[in-house]
């Protein structure tokens, strides 16, 4: 453990912690825009500058390792002046249309600018102008809002392992881009959305956010798509999902998702979604199964009808019994689903081999 002082507050942090980690542990706020606990330190935004006794200049707390007996000051006129100048510079090339912005009230830049307290724009000059890249079906890239914090680049590289994007060009022309500067959709992007998740501004945002305001409720849940069991947070408004993000607190995925978990949620509130068990009418009302496709198309006995879980399960159990008796266990095969939990799949395995008595069991992921 390392013992140090942040603004004269004693704090103890584990080896490998940064000064910023220590400040957080001591409950001292330091503004940050390019830091993310899940990503390697980068030192780009220069917001998190501090003074450290015995160190020259204004080191960035996010990248400086905490060391024994360090004495850190997070608040001084020198820090304030330099941070304000940097923030003014950042805003001198950022569209100031906060009220119309999809990130309004959830934007880190807005918050830190508020913390710094900018009141005027002394450095007027050229601003970047880019077309929005809407090529990806799920998210939009609006480089005019980008502050080049590099979080998206690091997330794509360090968390998703995809390296679809990087810094390109130099000086004022620097921007985040794909190889050969192609539209996102022509890159190697897998649409996992992690970059969107970490972006501190509206330089990356979900298309779904364009139609909605702020989410009013959030619900922790588990992703229904596969057995990994990633934690999700459903962002809802008036009971309807308007966005999904990975749950950082969940140790399974630490906020990560695949494209399905993050963007494949529209079915949840789709009108075609089946919410109750359905059975063929002949199974409920008697009669015999149609013999061919042609016959079934017109036959009302072949229609789906809603029923209760009890009824549906009873019909299934009876049918399995009958088939087993008439044709033997090996005439039954069982398919399970990647959407089930591991435990559920295990149970199906037991059910197939011990209850039904067949080895014919398989899983959709093998198809």
């Amino acid at each position, binding site marked *: 453990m390392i013992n140090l002082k942040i603004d004269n507050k004693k704090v103890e942090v584990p080896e490998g912690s940064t000064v910023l980690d220590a400040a957080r542990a001591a409950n001292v706020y330091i503004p940050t825009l390019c830091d993310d606990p899940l990503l390697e*330190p*980068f*030192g*780009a*935004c*220069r917001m998190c*500058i501090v003074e450290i006794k015995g160190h020259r*200049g*204004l*080191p*960035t707390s996010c*990248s*400086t*390792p905490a060391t024994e007996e360090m004495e850190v000051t997070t608040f001084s006129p*020198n820090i304030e*002046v*330099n*941070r304000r*100048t*940097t923030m003014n*510079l*950042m805003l*001198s*090339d950022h569209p100031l249309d906060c009220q119309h912005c999809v990130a309004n009230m959830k934007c880190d830049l807005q918050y830190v600018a508020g913390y710094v307290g900018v009141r005027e724009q*002394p*450095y007027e*000059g*050229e601003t970047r102008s880019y077309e929005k890249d809407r090529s990806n079906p799920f998210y939009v890239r609006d480089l005019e809002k980008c*502050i*080049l914090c*590099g979080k998206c680049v690091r997330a794509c590289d360090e968390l998703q392992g995809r390296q679809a994007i*990087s*810094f390109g*060009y*130099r*000086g*004022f*022309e*620097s*921007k985040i881009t794909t190889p050969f500067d192609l539209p996102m959709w022509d890159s190697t992007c897998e649409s996992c959305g992690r970059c969107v998740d970490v972006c501190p501004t509206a330089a990356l945002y979900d298309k779904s956010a364009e139609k909605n305001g702020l989410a009013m409720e959030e619900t922790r849940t588990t992703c229904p798509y596969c057995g990994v069991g990633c934690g999700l947070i459903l962002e809802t408004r008036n009971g309807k999902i308007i966005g999904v993000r990975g749950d950082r607190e969940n140790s399974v995925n630490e906020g990560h998702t695949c494209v399905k978990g993050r963007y494949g949620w529209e079915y949840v509130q789709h009108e075609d979604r089946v919410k109750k068990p359905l059975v063929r009418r002949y199974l409920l009302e008697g009669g015999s199964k149609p013999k061919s496709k042609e016959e079934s198309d017109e036959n009302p006995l072949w229609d789906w009808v809603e029923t209760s879980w009890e009824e549906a399960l009873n019909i299934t159990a009876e049918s399995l019994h009958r088939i087993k008796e008439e044709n033997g266990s090996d005439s039954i095969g069982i398919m399970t689903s990647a959407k089930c939990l591991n435990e559920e799949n295990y149970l199906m395995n037991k059910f197939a081999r011990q209850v039904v008595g067949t080895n014919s069991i398989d899983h959709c992921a093998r198809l």
Partner: protein
Amino acid sequence: MSNYTAIREWADEKTADKTRIVVGLGTCGIAAGGNKILDAVEKTLANNDAIKADVVSVGCIGICYKEPLLDIEIPGKPRLSYGSVTARDTKEILENIFLNNKYEHKKALAVIGDETFEGIPSWKEIPFFAPQERRVLRNCGFIDPEKIEEYIANDGYAGLSRALVEMTPAEVIDETLDAGLRGRGGAGFPAGRKWSIAADNIHTYKEKNPNSDAFGYVICNADEGDPGAFMNRSVLEGDPHSVIEGMTIAGYAIGATYGYIYCRAEYPLAIERLKLAIDQAREKNLLGKNILGTEFSFEIKLKEGAGAFVCGEETALIASIEGLRGMPMPRPPYPAQAGLWEVPTIINNVETLNNIPVILAKGAEVWAEKGTEKSKGTKTFALTGKVENTGLIEVELGMSLREVIYDIGGGIPDGKEFKAAQTGGPSGGCLPASMLDLTIDYEALAKAGSIMGSGGLVIMDTSTCMVDVARYFLTFTQSESCGKCVPCRLGTKRMLEILTRITEGKGKIEDIALLEELAPSIRDSSLCGLGQSAPNPVLTTLKYFREEYEAHILDGHCPAGQCKALITYTIDEVDCTGCTLCAISCPVDAISGAKKELHIIDTDICTRCDTCRQVCNFDAVLIDGNLL
């Protein structure tokens, strides 16, 4: 007999008593037509069986303004140098010497070396060479860089031999520390201190990672990205083995087994010669496994740079070698803690490494005789701009700017006056005439607001506008900013916009305050040295030439007569002869006037292209009423 003695004997024998015809074929020599001279030499030799000599091409000796150079070395006679030679001169000189025993020639420049020769001055009498102290450039222009025997015969690899055979690694570090050698790449960090930190870290790294492929790296920074700088290029082209020897000694000292030379891709000749030198050193067992029969093994790889100024910054350079985009990372961790592929690494400049063999061969004490208390040794500079003699120079640290500019540089040409000297390249500062007696050493330059840098030295005369100079340097740093951090990416952009505005006559008096607010903040808040030093030209010109900023803004006047938006062209009533040349030459027909009568410029039409002033034979065209 030790392995080195045998190699040395071989080299001495190979180089002994040779008649040599030497042609300067550094990049400067080639640019001046050195290859034509080489052709002329070969032709003359082919036509005259009586002339028997080895034809040798060498790197830059420094006196670039006298290239192409042709030198003759005959056993028993001093080495004679002829400058600005043409193919015809070459034939004449060779035939005179070898067929008629006549050495004088109108292009005779100097006797190089300690001997004298009747009728030709010693190089020590030539003002350009006299105050110089050639240590880094000891071999440049003297040896054939493509022949390892020539390097060895001039004490090459003696330092390596002494280090490997007689000294422990710790003793080598101590020797470097005692010499007080400071890094020549910019920051002036003591080389020995860097090595000793790295050596400790390599020791720990080895214990923790006993199975690692590499325990430490030595990187030679040969990126030399400052515009106008060519000190490192000259050493690489003229004396590549000195860098290889320096790296190998460094590797032994810190316990590294691999070295990388990160060389600017725009230096094809340097790269070619380095490759050759590495192969030759390996062949002679001066590199590779069990060097000189000792336990120590060391390999060097060459990596071509990615063409960005910022890749000279050490963490960006490491990223670039690793195949990533050259973008600086915050330090700590320093490369000496976790460098190339997270392994402890030292990065030293070409010139730093070039000094190492001398320190080891001659001893720290002898090496440290030159220089000042805190800035030991010598330093090379690329002397350019408005001085009579431009070229590559090497001086003892502690020499005054005045001596460099007026003695070596020969003063300001065209009878103009000195205005400012920019040291340290685009990130350095502009020093005014009142600082001419400043001594050139790390502390004095830093105190004056500039830096030693890697050795750029640009001299400006009174026709230079200091606001425009600041603007020029900011254009460079802005376009080379890697874009990562806000103060540098946007701060240099905004400063550049303000400076441009001032030079275009659109400046406001508040702009000076904005610059004064931005510059220190960019310096203090940027991540790497590029951003931290980018404001230097602005800070120093504001400090020493503030009235020039004010003249642009308040009086709408550019005192140097350079800023087009702020100057007017007129024709002098007395001097104009009415020759009509200006009127004919003006591309926009702004000049009117009858033959033999005073001509007049319509300032509304004039685009200030300067054509009229250049064509006028009577100095009658004035800028803001002055003859420039």
